[in-house]
């Protein structure tokens, strides 16, 4: 038996190997070296190191891409690193890092500080890697499940809490259902193409007619699975419950990391692989996008739980991003990338502030818990304001540029009705974001509550996400270029 892989293959897989290595190390060290609860925050070092090494590897990969151009494909095309994938890898990296940073105080407050948390966090990131880089149905599916299973565990991490259990159970069962459908779709795609490589599937799909029923069956079931993962209506039902029940830090991870990863996959599948069957899947996505914006907005309006509110808002955002995919031109895809980048920072930031609201004996998840935040902690309140404005898409915050590209691409491709609809929903969305702003700045606390639980890590993460939200809003040029470069077909 000859050696089937080369150093190039290694090079591509290096980041994920590093991450897995450090993830396992975390699990081991948790048992043997840091048995005491208060020591566990040192496990963050492993996370940091892992991410640093992975970042270094990404950086090297980027440099290699800059020289060679195009893509580096490894393991017989099963894994591919291109600018597009790298873009998402960086997003995952940032997300994991930030989530790790904000987690330890939160977990301490919730009395569930265990080393496994960080390990699984990094292993989930390994799964994400293959969602963005996978170029083979099997690889993608296993990667997806790695991420999903990690999330099932993380969502239920507050084992003593019924809500956390419940969220995990719901996520698992519904996730299993959706995985089943996705796998079913994959199986038919495999049947159609006779190969699990996306490139081969792409060719096979292109050679089939537009009204091919089997192709439709494959596309529809795949779409269902993907829409579930990005929490787009009508497959979003899990999101509010899971977001609410999960530890807030994991909600952030779920809302940002999982969603970005799923979108990476969705883009790869729809834009490249199924690109030629656009007429088949476009109506499905349009329906999903419109439903997502409608349901997300409407449901969020009267929501009083902030995590749930942001969950609905994330359903809404999924609708917006889908609009970019629907537009399907260069601007649209660029818009999706920018949107996801921006969304990473602003949503992480928003959840981060919510995380800080969780204090001993106070869940801090009700909208009234935000009251008087301006008095209590102006820094948090101001950053939160920026995140909310950005989520609402008001310039000069980053969120505006996300929406900008989406709208532009819709106009360029003549989807005027969707554009107007998107605009109107943007205005509706203001209402519930402003409810939070109102609570923070205008209303006052009814009774004295303990100070916010922050840590050095939280502060750093807050500043980073906040500054990035502002910087992308004020000077988006490099990021636009990055997105541009990331989506070169």
């Amino acid at each position: 038996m000859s050696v089937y892989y080369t150093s190039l293959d290694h090079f591509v897989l290096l980041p994920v190997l590093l991450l897995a290595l450090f993830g396992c190390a975390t699990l081991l060290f948790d048992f043997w070296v840091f048995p005491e609860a208060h020591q566990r925050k040192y496990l963050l070092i492993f996370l940091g190191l892992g991410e640093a090494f992975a970042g270094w590897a990404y950086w090297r990969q980027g440099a290699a891409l800059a020289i060679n151009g195009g893509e580096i494909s490894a393991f017989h095309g099963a894994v591919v690193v291109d600018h597009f994938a790298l873009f998402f890898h960086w997003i995952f990296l940032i997300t994991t890092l930030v989530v790790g940073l904000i987690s330890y105080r939160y977990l301490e407050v919730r009395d569930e500080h265990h080393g496994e948390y960080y390990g699984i966090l990094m292993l989930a990131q390994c799964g994400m890697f293959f969602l963005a880089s996978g170029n083979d149905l099997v690889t993608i599916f296993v990667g997806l499940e790695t991420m999903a299973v990690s999330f099932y565990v993380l969502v239920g991490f507050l084992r003593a809490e019924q809500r956390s259990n419940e969220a995990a159970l719901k996520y698992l069962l519904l996730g299993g259902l959706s995985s089943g459908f996705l796998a079913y779709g994959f199986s038919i795609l495999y049947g159609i193409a006779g190969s699990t490589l996306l490139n081969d599937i792409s060719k096979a799909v292109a050679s089939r007619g537009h009204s091919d029923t089997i192709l439709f069956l494959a596309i529809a079931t795949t779409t269902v699975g993907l829409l579930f993962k990005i929490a787009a209506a009508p497959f979003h039902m899990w999101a509010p419950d899971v977001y609410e029940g999960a530890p807030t830090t994991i909600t952030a991870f779920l809302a940002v990391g999982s969603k970005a990863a799923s979108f990476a996959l969705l883009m790869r599948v729809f834009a490249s692989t199924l690109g030629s069957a656009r007429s088949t899947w476009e109506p499905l996505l349009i329906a999903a996008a419109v439903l997502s914006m409608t349901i997300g907005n409407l449901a969020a309006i009267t929501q009083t739980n902030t995590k749930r509110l942001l969950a609905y808002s994330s359903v809404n955002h999924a609708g917006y991003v889908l609009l970019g995919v629907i537009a399907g031109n260069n601007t649209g895809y660029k818009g999706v990338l920018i949107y996801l980048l921006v969304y990473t920072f602003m949503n992480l930031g928003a959840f981060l502030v919510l995380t800080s609201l969780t204090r001993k004996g106070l869940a801090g998840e009700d909208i009234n818990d935000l009251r008087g935040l301006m008095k209590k902690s102006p820094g948090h309140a101001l950053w939160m304001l920026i995140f909310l404005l950005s989520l609402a898409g008001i310039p000069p915050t980053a969120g505006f540029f996300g929406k900008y590209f989406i709208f532009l691409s819709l106009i360029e491709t003549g989807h005027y009705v969707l554009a107007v609809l998107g605009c109107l929903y943007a205005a509706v969305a203001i209402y519930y974001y402003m409810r939070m702003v109102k609570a923070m700045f205008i209303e006052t606390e009814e009774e004295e509550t303990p100070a916010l639980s922050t840590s050095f890590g939280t502060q750093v993460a807050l500043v980073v996400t906040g500054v990035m939200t502002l910087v992308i809003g004020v000077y988006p040029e490099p990021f636009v270029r990055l997105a541009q470069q990331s989506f070169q077909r």
Partner: protein
Amino acid sequence: MLETGFFYAFAALTLIGAILTVTLRNAIHCAISLIGSLAGVAGLYLLQKAEFLFAVQIVLYIGGIMVLFLFVIMLVNLDAAARERQYHRHWLAAVICTVGSGALITWFLRQGSGTMHLGQSAPELPSAGNVEALSDVLFKQYLVPFELASVLLLVAVVGSVIMAKKRI
């Protein structure tokens, strides 16, 4: 034509087992029906000369997962649950949607079968060296998912331990 007979036998086993799984009241009976169904599927694998898969199905699935299920069923005393209402209230809507979807899937498959020559009976796969050939594919083309699967299983192990243990 022996194959046809076997197919129908295994198919019947699979489907009846599946139907019993979702209809029987007692969870243990469900589990046993599921074993039957899985065995039917395993038979189908064998029918298609997928011996390795057959082995995996028997050993891993029936031997591993189902034991786990039974274990859990024993652990969480389900007697009380078994006496209550068995189905969710919205059964009518659910049945309409599912049966409708199923019918449409079948319709799609039959419509499209012509373009993919699905209606022809597939030639036999070379039986000899099946496992070797399989490993060749597995470790060559699917090395990455194979390695990743180890990560997945690691997560699953750690995760189930975290979830199931009272204290860690």
